[in-house]
């Protein structure tokens, strides 16, 4: 009897530990299932994106090979180059092979990073061009979009909570700005700060008289050239994010738990902390969802500044009828967006356990 009484707390403790371990195990299983499904899903999407990238231009009416080869070679005078282009196409497209075999060949080369030779910038290889422009785009867009998103969320939250001048003047101003297309904002900033005020250089990613190296002059030049494209993307991003955050925050501020917390007398700052953490969650998904659109806009604004990123490369590929380069550009952009989305979803699973819980049902 006494022994049992003594044992009871111990047993209770033991069962607690067991249940805790069980919970943890379930939890891990949940994560595994959640991430496993996500990664599988993204792999499928990736494969389909690659297939589309391959197949769409081949659905072109008529004989695409001779048409493209003819277009690509039309401006060339060097007979050797023209022959190289034709051979390249015949080999690349493998006209006589069935579609599946063609795809296999293409995919095999692509996996090894071989996207063929560029026509407009012959004899540079496509992978070489992509490698040199990819870094510029990533370094420009990633920080700009993240900063714009952060500033937008702060502005939206402040507008929802403080009201007053933030809600009546600053937010509408940024809303108006967010409707300016990214390239339009680029042109405006360029005219005002680049040409009228002369505060920043207007085109390129570094001084035209410099060769990329690790010197201080080069770094300074890169930073100076970075300003206008960077801020044009940031400014355009803020408004759209702010309006989303504002409505989410208003929803949350009106929620029952907020009223209840107020009745309990919990400090306002603490409630605001809860509210904004909850309001943030949909904003993270929102970022992932709109990433593709935002990147599209930012890519076009690169053209305004002749920034040597993927956007400018893509334009020159289109103007030069450079099919291999264009398709490699779109593929790289797709992969970037897919990876960013996957990253956001992984982060989201950690921040918001409810998502993972939903997977367990």
């Amino acid at each position, binding site marked *: 009897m006494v022994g049992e009484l003594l044992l009871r707390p111990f047993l209770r403790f033991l069962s607690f530990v067991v249940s805790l371990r069980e919970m943890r195990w379930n939890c891990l299983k949940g994560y595994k299932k959640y991430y496993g499904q996500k990664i599988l*899903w*993204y792999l499928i*999407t990736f494969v*389909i*994106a690659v297939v*589309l*990238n391959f197949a*769409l*231009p081949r*659905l*072109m*009416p008529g004989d695409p090979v001779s*048409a493209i080869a003819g277009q690509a070679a039309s401006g060339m005078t060097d007979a050797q180059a023209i022959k190289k282009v034709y051979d390249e196409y015949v080999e690349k497209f493998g006209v006589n092979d069935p579609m599946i075999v063609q795809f296999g060949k293409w995919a095999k080369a692509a996996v090894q990073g071989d996207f063929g030779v560029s026509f407009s910038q012959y004899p540079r290889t496509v992978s070489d061009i992509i490698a040199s422009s990819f870094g510029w785009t990533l370094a420009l867009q990633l920080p700009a979009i993240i900063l714009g998103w952060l500033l937008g969320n702060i502005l939206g939250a402040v507008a929802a909570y403080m009201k007053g001048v933030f*809600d009546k003047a600053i937010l509408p101003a940024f*809303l*108006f700005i967010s*409707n*300016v*297309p990214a*390239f*339009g904002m680029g*042109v*405006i900033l*360029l*005219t005002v700060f680049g*040409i009228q005020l002369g505060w920043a250089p*207007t*085109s390129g990613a570094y001084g035209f008289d410099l060769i990329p190296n690790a010197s201080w002059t080069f770094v300074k030049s890169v930073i100076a050239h970075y300003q206008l494209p960077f801020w044009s993307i940031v400014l355009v991003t803020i408004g759209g994010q702010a*309006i989303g955050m504002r*409505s989410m925050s*208003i*929803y949350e501020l*009106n929620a029952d738990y907020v009223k209840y917390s107020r009745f309990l007398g919990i400090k306002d700052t603490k409630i605001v902390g809860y509210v904004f953490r909850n309001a943030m969650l949909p904003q993270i998904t929102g970022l992932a*969802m709109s*990433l*593709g*659109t935002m*990147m*599209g*806009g930012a*890519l*076009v604004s690169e*053209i*305004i500044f002749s920034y040597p990123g993927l*956007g400018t490369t*893509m*334009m020159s590929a*289109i*103007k030069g009828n450079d*099919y291999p380069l*264009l*398709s490699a550009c*779109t593929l790289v*952009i*797709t992969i970037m*967006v*897919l990876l960013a*989305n996957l990253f956001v979803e992984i982060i989201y699973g950690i921040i918001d356990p409810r998502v993972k819980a939903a997977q367990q049902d």
Partner: protein
Amino acid sequence: MKNTLRNIFHSPKFVIGFIIFFGLLAFTLIYPFFVAADPLDMVGQGNFFKPGTYVSVQDTVDAKYYTLNIQAKSSNLGDHIEEKDKQDMRDWLLNYGEVSQEELDAADDNALVVLWLEHYDEKAKQKGLLASKKKAYVRLNKEIVKLASDADLIIAVENEDGELEESKSVDSKQYVNTKDIANQRKLVLGTDNFGRDVLTELVQATKVSLKIGLIAGTVATLIGLMLGLLSGYIGGLFDNIIIFITNLFTVIPSFVLLILITYSVGQNARGVTLIAAVIGLTSWTWTCRSVRSQVISLRNRDHVNLSKLSGHSMIRIVLTDILPYVASYVVMAFILQISSGILAEAQLSMLGLGPSTTSTATLGQMMNWATMYSAHLNGSWWAYFPVVLVITLIAFSLNLMNTGLDQVFNPQLRD
């Protein structure tokens, strides 16, 4: 319905957006009645003429002259000399013209010209000045003398023998009334790189872009609505397939698809309608997702079940019991689709994949040509700024309307 409409038109945001949008639309419709010129007509020979009224020089010569007692030259002498030349003049006067710095600092544009005329001497010793620079000063001097002179201008006409015969002499006090001049063209926004009248082209382009937006929005909304309604209501395998495709195309950027498709159809097939349809075809996923999730929450409601028990057909249930509940959302999505369709066209055109330029002008094409001819670098603001403004105003007005509707249909968001 009447009540909803009244609510909508009481929302200030919606009303402002509505006024801006329909104001723009009305302007594009009314403008052609006043200016009948072909928007694609290349009026100017050469690119980027400044905004202003252009009058025929021959007409001015032939017009009736009035003598006005206005000091003609001195009033705006300085405006005709470029800033760089003024600086050069100051430099010369300081170094070789024996003019003190104080005197120069005190001199305004007109005084500077007076000083120049007094002190400049071609033959003065100009130590350390390059020969080319010396010659440049001689040319500059000629120009200034011409500007400053008020000698009569003689107009001569070639007679039968091929000799010039004086027909008129004009002094600096003679003016013509612009109303007397038959041949004049007002280019409110100047001309673009092809020499087209920017305002007329802009009006036409706005109309075409709005059409693109409307077609793209309609296509996207119809596809999204139909797939969303069906997949939400039917469920099962059909739903799984649809949601798979929808998820797929929300993750693969529609921008990329748009580029690939428009590139593949080739330059010749790329018309306005085709571009609009392709934009619509790549942007229905959002509507579909949202409609589907709303239908799922609706399909087990009592009134839907009642309809089912009454033996109504599926089409009737979807149209009468479910559609009205998602209609407000669909209208809002449609409004946003129009604005994103216009933007998508602009971006495509900037990349060189827009509709062909020779047949129509679109906002994106205007922007594309302006950047290709570096209007933004050589200060021809009229070629790109109005275009950016119109795109912004369209997007802003549509977004305002959307926000206004949102506040009417979701009372929680109201202030």
